[in-house]
């Protein structure tokens, strides 16, 4: 193997309004050999995307090269003029952006955008390019390859666009691919599919690649070499095996530590105490909810159907599902933000009014909602002590010295220094804001805390710390948790019980151990097998299994009859699963699977 790309002591700085330079990339060097995948890994602000873009001789507006060289086959791309850059980008280096939905031009056909570059640079004629595009569509397992080129970007799904991005990049047979977090925005079951397609296409084409991501488990599947970055500097640089299996640097170890182990039985917190006979802290029964105009009591867009969940006192229940499955809607129904069209919400066995406005203040106090995005959940015009002080005043009637003391205690509880009381939200980092967000909910002394994707917007190390904090808070306060997430490993590491939602229906529920060990519902099985494991070679193994076949992304719709998972299910029974609502199969304990197949059949 010979060196294709050499990044040599690269320095990039940001210029602000005062013309001052702030270094963003501080002397980074690494090489990419032909046919090799090098991963740049780091958290937000590490400079990984900036470094990757430098191989195309490009910096984002406001940034500039301040030193070093980036050599492609010995030729420095930083010093190229605009004509040279154009042919470099058109013919030799191709870029895949994070959000394909935004990077496709809405007004042009997919075919034109895929073939544009190689035709413009005279690599292929339009006919050859169209034929090559079609070959790539097939290789990337895209539906309807012969007519796909004539469609417009908004007519295909997000996962498909992400793969079309790859087709665009590969069409001109570049020497080097730059992939910038290409699977981050996707659901797990879609991610594995896209990852698989990328890996095999890269291998087929023999191209080299730079793969930018924050996710170590993904890196382990695809990279030959790994560059670990922090604040624009290399922390560790070595082969994938070496970095993943024997990390030598402290920061890499911390990153590894933050990766939650793959979901498996026996991870959840110990179920506290024996099963008590009293009413659950919070319970929802036969919920039907949705948006839009209601007709005969049924909303025009139904999001949830026949949902039953009970949260025992002091327990934590994880609700898991992919985007659009209705998990956030369920939390909103519980909080009263979205009144359910049918069904009941019970607090301590007492029925609550469906709408927020009709509930009493002490009922509201007992259920507290923690919003996903701390950035938007805290009023930017209020100081932290006002944010935390308001619920104390509102629910508990605390004033003056007593209130101030309690604010101090709350800050201590979420492990933040006391002087934060006098700051505004924008003076805090993302993780700190999320802690304030939690503290505000705790200020009400609630019985149930509804946590909606509370760590999904955070970097992995920060997110892991917040999970640790949540565990300590649970022990300390005995509050019940409803923990909503799209990430099965996160839920598995925190919850006593798990509810799996698919297209607005509960497909499986039970204790964490029961849900994460056989027998599985076919969808749960797919979810579990889709979570990347932090070991080299996992992807190849998984690709052999039949579950992977079900991962092909489809438009998920809530059907009135039959099982919503029917069209993806490897065990589907034609004529039954698409016609009849699956029965609740009660297994050991309170483990429930909704499926037409029997226990024995799951085990296969």
């Amino acid at each position, binding site marked *: 193997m010979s060196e294709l790309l050499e990044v040599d002591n690269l320095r990039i700085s940001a210029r602000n309004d005062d013309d001052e330079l702030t270094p963003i990339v501080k002397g980074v060097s690494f090489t990419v050999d032909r046919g090799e995948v090098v991963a740049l890994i780091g958290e937000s602000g590490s400079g990984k995307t900036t470094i990757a873009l430098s191989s195309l001789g490009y910096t984002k507006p406001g940034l500039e090269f301040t030193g070093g060289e980036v050599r492609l086959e010995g030729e420095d791309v930083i010093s190229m003029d605009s004509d040279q850059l*154009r*042919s470099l*980008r058109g013919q030799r280096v191709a870029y895949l*952006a994070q959000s394909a939905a935004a990077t496709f031009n*809405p*007004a042009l056909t997919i075919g034109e955008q895929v073939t*544009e570059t190689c035709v*413009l640079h005279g690599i292929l004629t339009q006919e050859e390019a169209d034929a090559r595009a079609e070959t790539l569509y097939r290789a990337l397992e895209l539906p309807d390859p012969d007519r796909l080129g004539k469609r417009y970007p908004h*007519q295909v799904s997000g996962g498909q666009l992400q793969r079309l991005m790859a087709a665009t990049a590969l069409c001109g047979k570049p020497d080097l691919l730059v992939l910038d977090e290409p699977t981050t925005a996707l659901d797990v079951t879609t991610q594995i599919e896209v990852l698989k397609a990328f890996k095999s296409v890269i291998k087929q084409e023999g191209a080299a690649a730079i793969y930018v991501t924050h996710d170590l488990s993904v890196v382990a599947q695809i990279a030959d070499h790994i560059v670990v970055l922090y604040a624009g500097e290399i922390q560790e640089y070595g082969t994938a095996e070496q970095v993943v299996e024997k990390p030598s640097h402290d920061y890499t170890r911390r990153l590894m530590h933050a990766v939650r182990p793959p979901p498996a039985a026996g991870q959840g917190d110990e179920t506290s105490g024996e099963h008590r006979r009293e009413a659950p802290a919070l319970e929802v029964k036969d919920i039907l909810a949705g948006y839009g105009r209601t007709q005969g009591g049924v909303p025009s867009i139904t999001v949830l159907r026949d949902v039953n969940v009970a949260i025992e006192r002091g327990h934590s229940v994880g609700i898991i599902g992919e985007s659009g499955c209705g998990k956030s809607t369920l939390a909103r129904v519980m909080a009263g933000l979205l009144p359910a069209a049918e069904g009941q919400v019970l607090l301590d066995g007492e029925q609550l009014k469906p709408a927020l406005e009709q509930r009493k203040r002490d009922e509201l106090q007992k259920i507290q909602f923690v919003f996903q995005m701390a950035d938007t959940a805290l009023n930017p015009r209020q100081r932290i002590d006002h944010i935390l002080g308001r619920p104390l005043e509102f629910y508990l009637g605390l004033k003056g010295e007593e209130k101030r003391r309690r604010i101090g205690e709350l800050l201590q509880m979420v492990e933040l220094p006391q002087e934060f009381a006098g700051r505004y939200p924008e003076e805090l980092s993302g993780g700190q804001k999320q802690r304030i967000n939690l503290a505000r909910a705790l200020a009400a002394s609630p019985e149930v805390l509804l946590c909606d994707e509370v760590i999904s917007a955070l970097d992995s190390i920060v997110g892991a710390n917040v999970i640790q904090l949540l565990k300590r808070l649970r022990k300390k306060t005995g509050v019940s948790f409803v923990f909503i997430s799209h990430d099965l490993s996160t839920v598995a590491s925190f919850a006593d019980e798990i509810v799996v939602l698919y297209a607005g229906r509960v497909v499986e529920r039970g204790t964490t151990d029961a849900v994460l060990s056989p027998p599985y519902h076919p969808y749960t099985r797919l979810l579990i097998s889709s979570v990347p494991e932090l070991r080299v070679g996992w992807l190849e193994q998984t690709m052999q299994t039949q579950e992977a076949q079900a991962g092909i992304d489809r438009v998920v719709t809530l059907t009135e009859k039959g099982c919503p998972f029917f069209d993806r299910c490897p065990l589907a029974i034609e004529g039954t699963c698409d016609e009849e609502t699956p029965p609740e199969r009660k297994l050991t304990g309170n483990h429930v699977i909704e499926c037409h197949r029997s226990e024995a059949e799951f085990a296969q």
Partner: protein
Amino acid sequence: MLWRAILGRFGISLVTLWVVSILIFIGTNLLPGDVAQIILGQMATPESTAALRAKLGLDKPPIQQYLVWLQNVAMGDLGISKAGLGAGLGTPIVEMLGPRVYNTARLTLLVAGIAIPVSLFLGLIAAMHPGTRLDRSITFATLNLISVPDFLVATALVLIFAVGLGWLPSIVFLRGDETGWVLIKTLAMPILTLVILVSSQIIRMTRATVLNVMSSPYIEMAILKGVPRKRIILRHALFNAVGPIVNVIALNLAWLVGGVVVVEQIFSYPGLAKLMIEAVLMRDMPLVQACAMIFCATYIVLIFIADIASILSNPRLRHPK
């Protein structure tokens, strides 16, 4: 889907026009004392006022009056004006409007014909070279021009071209049979004023629209794909900017509807707006109503065109799933 959106917009425009007609009707009937009294003046006997009132249908309840008025307007009968009163019952408004509408339409169409190409050119030039000297001077000049009163531009132009250089007349005197060079010279001042005012707006908004498109991720992607600059602008950016730009132009031509008022007055241009001012000064209510309806209808049509432009430029509506 596309047709439904367009039909929907059309429906909204009709409803708006109807609500506007109500507002104008209410507006012109705010004060006690009615058209009959205004027409005949203080000296009229109660009998003659009552007779005229009956003839004009003013003795009926307001809602019925409105309906009669609306029906007449729809049939093309805009009522009678106070002007030329003395012997009979005044002049039918339709007759008075003809030449005025012609003059105003001629003026605005000439302005649009000059302003649109000029301002698109300057707006695109500015957007293609953002931050350069050229761009900064264009933005600075246009910002100043949109900030100042219309009559400042007009008076400054008169001082320069009529008084200082003596090239052009400071007042428009139309006999109606001018052609060629004479006509151009006669209309030059109001046209120049309006072109400067309308162009400043269109230039700024065209620039903002194109820059907005140019900063979108798909343009950055096109740059990273090595697409040549010319193609990025002509195929990737302009394709997406065309709808918003047509929208901008239509909205600014709608603005022109208000802009002619001051300009026609300054240059004594015998157009519809000047007629309306005269009507307001003489409290000739039927004439005010008629002029206002024509202006508002034009305005609503232009806004409708602007909306259609945005609908047509939306690929989601043009190519449904």
